[in-house]
């Protein structure tokens, strides 16, 4: 009997032993009910559990599939070739799209195959060796910037490739994973950027920073090995003028041609372009002094030869300064400064020359810097003076004065204008100084009882910068000088460069009533087209022709030609540097209108010429 039924019977039996059948039926029925209920609950639970487990399983599978698809898509689309191989036999088991492209082989032809079945023997051997090494050592392989040895793109491409070993959970070699990254563009770009950083774009010669690096390296080596070498500082003469006259395209072509010639001639040396028209050459070690000099001479010669550029025949020269290590400096700064000093000397001595550094040059350069420094204070400290030199008709009657700037330096005394004016032009001080001269000259002239002319020189820099027209106008108003008594002397330099702007400015000045004279005629290019473009009021023949009148017959011819040309154009001519009666007589004979020079009077303070301007001494004293 079932234990429960026995229990039910016991529970239905009273103390007298009588079984209450109704009670028993109730118990039995309730037991069936409970059993049914439990079975239903169990069945339901099992069914639901199966459903739930099924759903969970599907969800897990879906998540797994998504995760896999995600990873597959990343690997497939990563722009780096990715492959995986069986670590045991190097059989390919994965290759992404970039991998197919690199190898130039569809993956169906690679997957499941060993390198021997895919690649030529020589390559398969290398691949297998690499694979074995990575598997045996467990150390990753990394090859940088090597050529891809297989595939359609093959040998044109540079790649970084890596291989590393993946172990299974037990630590045994399982996969070889590899990535191949195409770095061709990157390497090319890096090389290009590096080249640009160290080379001059116009000539493709090394630039200043490359030169400095090379020099530093050389110095270091030379200090260790006690060798010697030379540094050449080069400057193209008159290159700026070529640029101005022929324009930058021609200038650029000329620069390239010059650079080519320098590099060809100085073959074996380090030739760098370090700025505008400046070059540096670092000679090889232990080249004898005379050979360095000989090379420098050859460089001057080769640049001096005519360069035909685009149907033009611009003519430039070359100046060279040389400094030797260790004699002229043991560090870069000194060595370069001394080569520059030598170059400066070469240029000052007339260009087209080679100079080797000598210790006094150093002094000279420093001196120049000092002078430039003093120049800044000269104006405020009233160190400038205006001298006046009379200008006369050829018969000797004084008709005016040229105002000339002088600098009375507190310690040096009078500094020659050809030393300080270029310095003032370099740092722009000339604008301020020029205005001062103009104002002084006009004020002085305005005070003269006789209405004589006053001529003032204008620097090209004054034309390029500042408001010259306004400043002249202002000065005329201030001083009350009649504009027609003022004459400005300009050189060709004013017109070179921005020709149109200069011409407009001249026209406006002329409209004010100011007279315009062409100075230093006969030197430089003396382009006749300038005479055609602008109605100059006067032409001044350069002193060089006058002083040579007696010595060279050509000078006389040139003077004659200029005079006849000017007369034909109806432009009066003044000759400067007239010192002798013979010169004056020649000029008179040739119908030169005016003269200036020691014969008439030296440049001096106006006090010396008071009688000429119509001032009696007494009057001046009380004025």
């Amino acid at each position, binding site marked *: 009997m079932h234990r429960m039924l026995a*229990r039910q019977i016991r529970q239905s039996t009273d103390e007298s032993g009588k079984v209450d059948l109704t009670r028993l039926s109730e118990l039995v029925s309730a037991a069936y009910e409970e059993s049914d209920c*439990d079975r239903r*609950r169990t069945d339901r639970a099992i069914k*639901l559990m199966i459903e739930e487990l099924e759903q969970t399983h599907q969800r897990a599978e879906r998540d797994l599939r998504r995760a896999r698809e995600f990873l597959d898509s990343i690997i497939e689309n990563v722009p780096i070739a990715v492959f995986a191989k069986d670590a045991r036999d190097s059989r390919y088991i994965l290759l992404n799209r970039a991998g197919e492209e690199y190898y130039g082989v569809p993956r169906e032809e690679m997957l499941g195959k060993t390198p021997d079945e895919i690649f030529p023997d020589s390559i398969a051997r290398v691949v297998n060796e690499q694979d074995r090494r990575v598997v045996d050592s467990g150390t990753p392989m990394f090859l940088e910037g090597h050529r891809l040895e297989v595939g359609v793109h093959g040998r044109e491409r540079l790649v970084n490739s890596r291989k590393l070993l993946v172990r299974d959970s037990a630590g045994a070699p399982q996969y070889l994973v590899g990535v191949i990254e195409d770095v061709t563009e990157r390497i090319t770009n890096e090389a290009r950027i590096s080249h640009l950083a160290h080379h001059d774009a116009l000539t493709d010669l090394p630039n200043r920073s490359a030169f400095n690096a090379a020099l530093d390296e050389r110095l270091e080596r030379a200090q260790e090995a006690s060798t010697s070498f030379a540094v050449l500082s080069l400057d193209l003469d008159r290159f700026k003028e070529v640029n101005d006259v022929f324009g930058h395209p021609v200038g650029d072509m000329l620069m390239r041609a010059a650079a080519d010639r320098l590099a060809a001639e100085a073959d074996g040396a380090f030739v760098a372009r370090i700025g505008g028209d400046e070059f540096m050459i670092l000679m090889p070690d232990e080249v004898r002094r005379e050979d360095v000099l000989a090379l420098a001479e050859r460089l001057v010669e080769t640049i001096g030869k005519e360069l035909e550029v685009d149907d033009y025949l611009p003519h430039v020269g070359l100046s060279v300064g040389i400094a030797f290590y260790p004699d002229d400096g043991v560090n870069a700064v000194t060595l370069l400064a001394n080569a520059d000093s030598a170059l400066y000397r070469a240029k000052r001595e007339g260009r087209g020359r080679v100079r080797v550094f000598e210790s006094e040059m150093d002094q000279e350069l420093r001196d120049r810097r000092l002078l430039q420094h003093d120049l800044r204070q000269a104006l405020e400290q009233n160190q400038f003076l205006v001298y006046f030199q009379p200008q006369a008709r050829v018969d000797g009657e004084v008709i005016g004065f040229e105002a000339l700037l002088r600098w009375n330096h507190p310690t040096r005394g009078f500094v020659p204008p050809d030393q300080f004016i270029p310095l003032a032009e370099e740092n722009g001080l000339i604008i301020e100084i020029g205005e001062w001269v103009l104002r002084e000259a006009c004020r002085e002239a305005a005070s003269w009882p006789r209405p004589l002319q006053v001529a003032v020189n204008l620097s090209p820099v004054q034309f390029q910068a500042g408001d010259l027209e306004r400043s002249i106008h202002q000065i005329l108003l201030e001083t009350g000088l009649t504009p027609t008594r003022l004459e400005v002397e300009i050189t060709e330099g004013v017109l070179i460069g921005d020709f149109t702007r200069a011409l407009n400015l001249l026209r406006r000045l002329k409209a004010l009533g100011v007279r315009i004279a062409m100075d230093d005629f006969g030197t430089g290019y003396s382009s006749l087209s300038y005479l055609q473009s602008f109605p100059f009021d006067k032409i001044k023949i350069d002193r060089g022709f006058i002083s040579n009148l007696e010595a060279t017959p050509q000078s006389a011819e040139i003077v004659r030609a200029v005079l006849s040309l000017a007369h034909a154009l109806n432009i009066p001519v003044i000759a400067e540097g007239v010192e002798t009666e013979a010169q004056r007589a020649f000029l008179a004979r040739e119908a030169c209108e005016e003269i200036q020079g020691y014969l008439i009077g030296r440049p001096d303070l106006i006090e010396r010429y008071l009688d000429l301007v119509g001032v009696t001494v007494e009057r001046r004293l009380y004025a």
Partner: protein
Amino acid sequence: MQIQYLHWNAAHGWRGADALREPPQLVLYFGSREQLADGERYRELHALYPDGHIVGCSTGGQIHGDDICDDEVVAVALHFAHTQVRLVQEVIESRDASRACGARLASQVLAADLAGLFVLSDGLAVNGGELLAGITEVLGPDLPVTGGLAGDGTRFEQTIVGADAEPSPNRVAAIAFYGASFRFAHGCAGGWDVFGPRRKVTKAEGSVVVELDGEPPLDLYTRYLGEEEAEAMPGSGLAFPLRIHDEAEPNRQIVRSVFAVDRNARTLTFAADIPEGCTAQLMRANFDSLAAGAGEAGKQARSALADGVAGDKLAILVSCTGRRRVMGQRTQDELDAVAAELGEDVVRIGFYSYGEIAPPAASGRCELHNQTMTVTVIAEAAA
């Protein structure tokens, strides 16, 4: 120790064995809420044993000997030869105050020779886990604490506890036993099987589970119970307790059963806190496993009881209402299993509860359980 066993029914009133030779210090009684609520049983017992502490609670069924009954109140009167007995009690103001309440109770009984604590608590107004946490906070993890939460059949409406007074709700009583002679052995086991997928408690607030795998937990239970049985929630929910996996203590067996339901929010309240983010799995009954589990509890208690006991031995069986509901008439099987393990010489009394208190065999730390059979054996050693 001497035991006098008594039982009461409406027809015959109190009946029982011969009176004790010496007055008992402690009387324990268990009955349904209806039988106890009017205080008449307490007054009757007090009249019988004016010098003893009289402690009892409402249940989900009484256990006496091999039988379960709903229509009889069961009681034991105990006389200890050497053991000191002390009764303390607290009224709990709110569920949130459970831990503080436990701590207060424990503070009152704390003494060097405290040998064991048996707790009877309100089964609905108290967070049993917190109550025990408060007690062990004061007494330390090594002092054995057993007992149970009062029941209310499968109605989950009101539970009552009486301690030297008429039983009333919101009450927690603790009986402290002192002295070296006192023997306190216990066992605890479940026997439920986990089934179905592991689920995540995606949202929980204290003991209220708001979402399981993003779904209201009532929906899950309704699916598993069927619409008809789900009507009987929370009682019917006892068929599917939750096994909680604690990541920090993977071996800890935590089983929680439903004891309240919010049909609007579709949430379920469990007997103790369920941490958000933990993993939960449904459990189901297999009658043989449950019976075997109960046997295991009996075996643990018996083997923990040292030799050299003098006098009678009492086993207090506290089993879960959920077990009785699931097993129906087969519930008897679990009582048979316990009896077989304890042996004929142990008097058995007990009740079906809303929560069992005992240190599980694995951790030894006193805890609140659901869906277990716990067996507490008390006795005295020979002088």
